[in-house]
């Protein structure tokens, strides 16, 4: 609907002040005049054109004054220089999707719309492309609407999250705020429940292959990250990887013991409950049994220690945090 492939029964779509759809006023801008860079689930490259001409396709239809992206910048950002003279039939799935991203970008769109761009790829291909999407977000000054069912992808890439289920918006907000909420996990799937927090790289430990992060609540140890000292990173800690202790434990292999205070206990009937623990401003989630809650007296206000194994903090969820100001957030979409 944002791109104009579907016509909504009713609603309004505004991108950066330009009305694309307003059923009340009978406005429907056709897809070729919307300048929405659409990256589809499957690459949809033109098989009869070389990669170069695929990339330049949208540029032909962009007025010279509106061309913001430089061909060579986009090509090197996506690492596709060596593919330019080939045809799409000869590319791997990951390469095709990178070319598709470049093609959408070179049409100098108002907003880049990525509709599950990784869904049709296997895990190694996803890992190949994700860094490029991160660079895109950080370097190309263009808002991105990224549609995904993968909580891990969203936690890694998003600045703001709109959580939708059954066609309704359940939550809107910065990624840490939305993932820190307990009441949303029935929607995202309990297995994926986990909070997102940000921290700064303090130092790297060469000997043990670790990286230490500074967080207001204390030092967080994670497997080595290939990011410079001082960089801000975002990590996702799944609630099932967190142990809660009422005293500071000793003689324990887990390297992260963070003091905090329980602020919320999810109310549910099952044997397992989620807790939200405030850690100096941020919060993380912990999944414990009903029995532990009763035996340890885990209730809001209780001072506890959250224990996280370093190895449970996956490097996949560790990345450069996007700029915290709101400039990367598209002003759009009241649907």
């Amino acid at each position, binding site marked *: 609907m944002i*791109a104009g492939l579907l016509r909504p029964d009713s609603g309004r779509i505004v991108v950066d002040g330009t009305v694309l759809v307003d059923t009340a006023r009978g406005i429907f801008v*056709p897809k*070729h005049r919307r300048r929405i860079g659409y990256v589809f689930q499957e690459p949809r490259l033109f098989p009869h054109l070389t990669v170069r001409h695929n990339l330049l396709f949208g540029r032909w239809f962009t007025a010279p004054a509106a061309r913001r992206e430089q061909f060579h910048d986009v090509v090197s950002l996506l690492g596709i220089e060596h593919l330019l003279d080939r045809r799409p039939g000869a590319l791997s799935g990951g390469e095709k999707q990178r070319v598709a991203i470049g093609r959408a970008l070179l049409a100098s769109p108002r907003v880049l719309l990525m509709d599950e761009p990784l869904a049709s790829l296997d895990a190694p291909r996803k890992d190949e492309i994700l860094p490029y999407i991160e660079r895109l977000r950080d370097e190309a000054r263009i808002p991105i609407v990224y549609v995904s069912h993968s909580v891990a992808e969203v936690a890694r890439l998003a600045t703001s999250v709109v959580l939708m289920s059954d066609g309704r918006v359940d939550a809107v907000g910065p990624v840490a705020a939305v993932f820190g909420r307990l009441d949303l996990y029935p929607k995202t799937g309990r297995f994926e429940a986990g909070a997102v927090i940000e921290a700064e790289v303090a130092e790297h430990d060469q000997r043990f292959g670790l990286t230490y992060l500074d967080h207001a609540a204390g030092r967080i140890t994670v497997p080595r990250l290939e990011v410079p000292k001082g960089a801000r990173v975002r990590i996702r800690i799944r609630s099932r990887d967190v142990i809660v202790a009422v005293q500071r434990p000793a003689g324990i292999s887990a390297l992260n013991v963070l003091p905090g205070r329980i602020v919320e206990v999810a109310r549910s009937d099952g044997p397992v409950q989620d807790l939200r623990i405030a850690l100096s401003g941020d919060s993380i989630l912990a999944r414990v049994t009903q029995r532990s809650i009763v035996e340890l007296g885990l209730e809001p206000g209780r001072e506890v220690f959250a224990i996280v194994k370093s190895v449970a903090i996956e490097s996949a969820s560790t990345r450069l945090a996007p700029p915290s100001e709101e400039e990367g957030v598209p002003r759009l979409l009241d649907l």
Partner: protein
Amino acid sequence: MPEFTAEELAAIGLSLRVAFWAMLGSLPFGILVALALARGRFWGKTFVDGLVHLPLVLPPVVTGYLLLLLFGRRGPIGELLEQSFGIVLAFRWTGAALAGAIMGFPLMVRAIRLSIETVDRRLEDAAGTLGANRFWVFALVTLPLTLPGIVAGMLLSFAKSLGEFGATITFVSNIPGQTQTLASAIYAYTQVPGGDAQALRLTFVSIVISMAALLASELLARRVRKRLAGD
């Protein structure tokens, strides 16, 4: 093999010219009609489909006779063409090309239509989001991807015109050097005593031309397919 006579050479040349122009002249119409039939939703589509296929089913003599009625010098369209543009089709080689084009039209449309139907509409959507309007989507995406069908359709039309006999002889007759094509020349030779040798020679020429056309289109189609599949 003895030298060809002037009459035989004229028949060979005329056949090639007729088939070439029948193919080329009907191509734009063939693409448009195929597009309308493959994509269009309009009232009377089944009727148009039937009309296009009619020459395939009708006895060629009937088609030729209808052409004579419509495009003859006193036919409604023929008269208009002659008065407005000075174009006369009846009993000219151009008329033979028209007859060939009409007879080959259903084959050409079928081939192109099938090819259009296999084009992935999602690619056209993608082109649309990149800023291409409907015309450019057609010119830059749909048409190139239809190329295999267009090549096949052109060959079928060419081959049909080359072999066309019934409609041609009815519409433009069999005037040596003017409207006598290979097919009608062979027919004429078989009707005169002692013409067997000449008929056989022209038969051989027909086989060579047909084979060459088949091979050329196969090579072309292979190149197109290879391009679409990647290097």
